[in-house]
Every structure is written in structure tokens, then in C-alpha cells.
């Protein structure tokens, strides 16, 4: 578990360093995610070390964004002033995104599951 944690943090900082060196506007941990996914496929030992820690972190993913969410207290005025607009954008954009994604996937996918050879 601790080995996995150290490994994951090493990938996070390696990702951060790579993003800065390359001048990418991408968060370091995302570069670390991509690097770990690629290397863990090539080298299963990495996967085995990271897996228990990763699963533990992801099981409580919701917990991790509570402190930042509470930070909205500092922006209540902005939120209150724009509430109607924000809600409209959220609902419409989410509906459009789900609909388009599902239609594109279903259109291109071979007939599903049970009946496939």
C-alpha cells in the first residue's frame, strides 16, 4: 500500500516536471496518469504495486473534493449573481453531451454482447 502510494506520487511529480519542461497547459497529475497507464501495460509489476493504493484512493474519490467544494463559500456572491445562467449551461450542456456521445457510440458499435460470436 505504501509502496503503491510512493510510486503514484513519483508519477505525479514526473508528470509535473514533464509538463513544465514541455510547456504543456496540462495538469502534471494528468501527464502522470498517461505515463503510468502506458508503462503499467508494458510492465505488469508496476500495475501490481500501484493497484491496491489506486483502488483505495478511488473508492473515496468523492471525499477528496469536499475541501475544495467548501471553498465555494469564498465565491457565494459570484454564484448567487449568476445562478440561473450557470444552471442553464449545466443542464443543457450535460444533456447535449450525453445524447451526442451515446448516439455516436451506438452508431459505430457492432451489435452488442450476448448474440455476438
Amino acid at each position, binding site marked *: 500500500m505504501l509502496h503503491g502510494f510512493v510510486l503514484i506520487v513519483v508519477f505525479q511529480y514526473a508528470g509535473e516536471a514533464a509538463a513544465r519542461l514541455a510547456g504543456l497547459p496540462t495538469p502534471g497529475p494528468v501527464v502522470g496518469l498517461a505515463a503510468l497507464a502506458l508503462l503499467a501495460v508494458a510492465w505488469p509489476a508496476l500495475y501490481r504495486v500501484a493497484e491496491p*493504493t*489506486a483502488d483505495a484512493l478511488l473508492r473515496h474519490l468523492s471525499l*477528496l473534493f*469536499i475541501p475544495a467544494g467548501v*471553498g465555494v463559500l469564498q465565491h457565494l456572491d459570484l454564484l448567487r449573481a449568476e445562478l440561473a445562467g450557470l444552471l442553464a449551461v449545466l443542464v443543457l*450542456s450535460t444533456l447535449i453531451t450525453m445524447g451526442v456521445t451515446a448516439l455516436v457510440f451506438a452508431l459505430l458499435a457492432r451489435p*452488442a454482447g450476448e448474440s455476438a460470436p
Partner: protein
Amino acid sequence: MRDAMTGPVAADFWVYLATSPLFWLALTLSVYLGADRLSALSGRNSLVNPVLIAIVALGAVLIATGTSYETYFEGAQFVHVLLGPATVALAIPIVRHRGEIRRNLLPLVVALLVGAVVGIASAVGLAIALGLDAALVASLAPKSVTAPIAMGVAREIGGVPELTAVLVIATGITGAALVTPVLNLLRVRDWRARGFAVGLAAHGIGTARALQVNPVAGTFAGLAMALNGLVTAFAAPLVVAWLVG
């Protein structure tokens, strides 16, 4: 906190607690556990979202006790710093499902790229059309992806990460609540497509919903959540620059 102020001993103890980072850390964990219990009791009703409940409850405590966010964050930061490692950890479910990725490569890649761009562009386009200010537009752009990634992206493109965290949660609840009626209306019956769509548009909260409904949908939702986190992190700065610029 009037009760705590009734005696000098209680008042002293409150002063001690209120400045102790461990107290705010423990309170964050307790409130999360309580909110998660409420969600379980509701039968995981998508409208009873534990994160939303916990944020409202903790916010109410801070306001009622006159505690500053900075004081609260001295304790809560120990949870907050795990957002980075949790993002890296999303590599593991992607590797675990690489068989499914390979078998459905074409629909997956095309739906992923189209969905990611539509997710960002529709949020940014609608926000601009409604005249929201630039910080809000940037905070909305990554709303479909899991919070640790969305907050990192928001910071990169001039948004407000704390606001993005709340918008991400609201998007998750919206997607989880609307996915069934909308995809029924569009007559999409393929569980892979339904799961992929809700995971892409509504990240972990949508994925949790898909898992409750159908295991195939759940697998594809988890996959879409992780992959869209990756694509949106790269695409959001470009799409925003293109639409705003």
C-alpha cells in the same frame, strides 16, 4: 456554537478545537461518512448526493461558528492533497479494462473525441451566449470531468478551481438524474453506449449511477470517465482559446 460558549471551560475548549487542524480534518471525514450514510439510506437516489450534502453541512458549520476558510483548510488540506495522487490512480482502471478498450476501439475513440469536444464547446458556447463572465466560462469548461482533473484544468485556463469543484458535482448530479429519460427518448438501447455517455458527461457520479443500473454500462462509464479526464485535460485549453480567443 452558543452552547459551547456557556462556560469558560467549554469556551476555552472550543477555542482550542477551532484552531486545531486535526479537528477540521476529523470533522470533514465525519461529515462525509454521515452524508454517505444518508445517500445509502435513500437507496443511492441520484438526487441525494453525499458530496453536495457534505459541502452544504460543512459550509453551514463554518458560517455558524465564524470560522474562516483558511483555518478550515489547515486541517482539510490533508484530504485535498490526495487529489493529485487520485488523478494518477485513474490509470489503474484504464489498464484493467484495456481488453474492452481494444474490442470496441472505433466507437470508443470516436465517441470519446466527439463527446469531449462537445462537452467543452457546449459549456463554453452556452456560457458565452448567456453573457457569463470570463472566469465563469473558464470554470465551466471542464465541468464534465472528474473533480481533481477539472480543478487542475480550471486553474490552467483562468477559472476558479473551488467553483469548478461545485460545478463538477452539480454536473454529475444532473447527468445521473437525466441519463435514463434522455437516452430512452433518443432510443439508445446499447448498454455500452449508455454507460459510456453518462461516464463521459457526468464522471464519477454518472458512473455510480450506471453501475446501479447495469454492469456493462458501469464498466463503460468508468472507462469513459478516466479517458475523458485525459482528453479534456489536453483539449479544454485549446477549445477555450479557440472559442474565447
